[in-house]
């Protein structure tokens, strides 16, 4: 009996071991998927797509549909009447369709759009509006809105050749996918339809282009600039009408603003590492450093300008914030009811200045609409004295190579990029349309706090927050790694720069070698 029981136990353990080891080994060599989540990782520092920020207010005044709208759309569609074109849930108002682009392709067929914004808030609802409005304009078009796309999913689609017609992308995806030949060039459509690209912000068109060809139409561009809490400035005796004009201003003012109680910081003047994207990318450029050679094959950021910029960030962190650990502790201590990070801290008057995205107006609207804020360009460092910087990014929609309904997809892109599409992009969110006319739509300007003062900075965007290169993801990760090593003082600025340059150069070499 005893022997039998022991034998069974031994068999159980052996079988269990085999049963566990077998699948695990299979997974280890790529056969299983359970180890990795299905959702794409949130790109570090990617701009929020406004999902959380949409002030619900509808436009205050409905603009009557213009009679000329009928001529802008085919007369064989009911939408030609124009007036109550869109679902009332969109904006509770009639939409002027006079600027809806005239279709060239036959307006019937099926379109598939993929994005990852969900279907319950901000950007996801805006996508639903765009899709519904397009189908209402052109009833013979059926559009499928796939809102839960992940990076793995679209990579698999591209690899298999069975692609959706339209894919929402982030700015740093454009060079990555563009250089790998996954995106359709739109230039022939643009010239065929004489499509005016000057209706968009310059930098939005630039980030929608790769290798001299337009490969996407902007959904919404975004910028990173200086935000100043005027109330704090007044409290500490600083001029609340002025944004910092130099890096010295940032350090001196920031030090004055930071406060402590019981040995712990209760307010920070400025935290160099708190940016929407890896901070070294921005601060190095703001001191005049270039990130790569013109041909995109060489890493060039290991320069004196970069050393000075990174050293400044380290010193500023020490002087203003008492060191990197304090910023981590402060961030952990100041999780607000709405969420965590400087995004939610700013409207709670916990930071005096920051280099952040235009979307920072959204939490101000929600938490502290009475807050006084001014925006400014980020000042140049000692090696770029007198210069000022605004860092651009954004999202866009591309037609993938191999799309089954490319002509029809282009018509949707035109709709997206039109003032009407641009209005829908903004109606439920705090996003700024890439279409300049739509961005200046009075209904949007009135609705969004701070829009009047931040919009001019969109015209001044002069750098990207990312490396416009096929290795942009590696570069971003490398900047994060380098930034942390510097702030944690694990290595000197020079050593960290040297190591990172080597890694980035290796990524360049690997990539370009694979292209030959």
């Amino acid at each position: 009996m005893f022997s039998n029981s022991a034998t069974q136990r031994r068999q159980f353990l052996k079988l269990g071991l085999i049963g566990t080891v077998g699948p695990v080994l299979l997974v280890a060599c790529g056969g299983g998927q359970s180890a990795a989540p299905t959702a794409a990782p949130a790109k570090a520092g990617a701009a929020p797509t406004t999902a959380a920020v949409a002030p619900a207010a509808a436009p205050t005044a409905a603009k009557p549909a213009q009679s000329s709208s009928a001529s802008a759309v085919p007369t064989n569609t009911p939408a030609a009447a124009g007036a109550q074109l869109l679902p009332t849930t969109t904006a509770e108002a009639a939409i002027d369709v006079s600027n809806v682009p005239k279709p060239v392709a036959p307006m019937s067929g099926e379109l598939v759009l993929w994005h990852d914004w969900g279907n319950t808030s901000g950007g996801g609802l805006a996508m639903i509006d765009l899709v519904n409005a397009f189908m209402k304009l052109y009833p013979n078009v059926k559009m499928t809105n796939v809102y839960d796309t992940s990076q793995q999913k679209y990579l698999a689609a591209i690899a298999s050749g069975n692609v959706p017609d339209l894919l929402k992308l982030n700015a740093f995806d454009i060079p990555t996918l563009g250089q790998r030949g996954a995106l359709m060039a739109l230039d022939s459509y643009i010239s065929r339809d004489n499509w005016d690209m000057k209706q968009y912000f310059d930098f939005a068109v630039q980030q929608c282009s790769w290798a001299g060809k337009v490969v996407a139409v902007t959904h919404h561009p975004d910028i990173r600039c200086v935000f100043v809490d005027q109330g704090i400035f007044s409290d500490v005796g600083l001029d609340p009408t002025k944004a910092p004009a130099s890096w010295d201003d940032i350090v001196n003012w920031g030090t004055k603003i930071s406060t402590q109680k019981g040995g712990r910081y209760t307010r920070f003047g400025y935290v160099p590492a708190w940016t929407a994207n890896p901070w070294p990318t921005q601060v190095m450029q703001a001191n005049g450093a270039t990130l790569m050679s013109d041909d995109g094959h060489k890493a060039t950021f290991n320069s004196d300008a970069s050393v000075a910029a990174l050293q400044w960030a380290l010193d500023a962190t020490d002087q203003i914030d008492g060191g990197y650990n304090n910023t981590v502790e402060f961030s952990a201590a100041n999780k607000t009811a709405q969420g965590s990070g400087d995004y939610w801290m700013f409207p709670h008057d916990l930071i005096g200045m920051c280099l952040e995205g235009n979307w920072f107006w959204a939490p101000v609207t929600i938490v502290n609409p009475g807050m006084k804020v001014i925006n400014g360009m980020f000042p140049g460092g000692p090696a770029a004295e007198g210069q000022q910087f605004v860092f651009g990014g954004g999202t866009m929609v591309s037609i993938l190579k191999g799309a089954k309904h490319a002509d029809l997809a282009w018509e949707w892109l035109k709709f997206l990029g039109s003032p009407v599409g641009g209005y829908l992009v903004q109606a439920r969110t705090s996003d700024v349309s890439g279409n300049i006319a739509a961005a200046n739509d009075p209904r949007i300007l009135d609705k969004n706090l701070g829009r009047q003062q931040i919009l001019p900075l969109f015209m001044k965007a002069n750098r990207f927050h990312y490396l416009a290169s096929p290795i942009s993801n590696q570069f971003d990760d490398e900047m994060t790694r380098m930034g942390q090593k510097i702030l944690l003082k694990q290595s000197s600025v020079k050593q960290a720069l040297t190591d990172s340059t080597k890694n980035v150069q290796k990524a360049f070499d690997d990539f370009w070698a694979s292209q030959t």
Partner: protein
Amino acid sequence: MSDTAILAGTRRGVPERKRRVSARTEERLAGFLFASPFLVGLLLFTVIPVLASIYYSFCNYPIIASPKWIGLHNFVEMFTNDPQFITSIYNTMYMVVIGVPIGTVSGLIIALMLNQKVKGLAVIRTVYYMPSQFAGVALALLWGWLLNPQFGVVSNALFLVGIKAPLWLGDPAWVKPSFILMGLWGVGGAMIIWLAGLQSIPESLYEAAHVDGATSWLCFWKITLPLLSPTTFFVVTTSVIATFQIFTQAYVLTGGGPADASLFYALYLFNEAFQYFRMGYASAMAWVLFVIIMLLTLLQLKLAQSWVYYEAVKE
């Protein structure tokens, strides 16, 4: 021919000698047919990808373009020119060498405590086992809160006894110990295995030992531990394999940071495949991981011969 004869013929169908397949073959076919949903899935989603990954590991394969054969380049690069690879190996080995023993011993201690005859034992066992059933992203987020340096439960508990908590996930020196601490949450799974092992040890051995004057410690050392050796072997082997694949916590909470301190092997592999579009390199990494795990498992199997005691065999 009578109706009965016709019916009988019909019922029997074709005479035995004319059947194309035997009943045994028919049975086999039916078996395969019933198993086919699993077999087809296994073939399509496991066997073929595994075989494909062998090929890709020798290729430059950017996912959205065709793979190009580059021979051993991926493997050579991994061991000679990739500091992140070495870092990820170090971080993962740290978890294996430090984390597995801690988890194993913790599971055993809890199992020993829950092997006592006390009131409400089933409930207590359930309470200890339940956390192991919560895993993945939710668990990672929960621990993110528990380890908050300012108002997390763990930090506050330390504060109450006069210890200033570290920054946990924000400190390169503490991020891996934090993950080990997190791992203890799931120790209930090992505890159940230990309990099963403990309960299979015959009571008579302890009684005999006590009659001979053995202390409790001696009983544990000379009876419990040796008879638990097959269980120990199982727990250690599976824990080592699982630890080599640690991913979710780091992916959700730290992204591999700060400064690569939590860049574990599986996370780095994932980044190479889906962030950097280097599926060939990631495939090579997967096979290296496979080889590491296989060698370690074989080593453990070999070593097990000298310390694992299967009483039935010995008798």
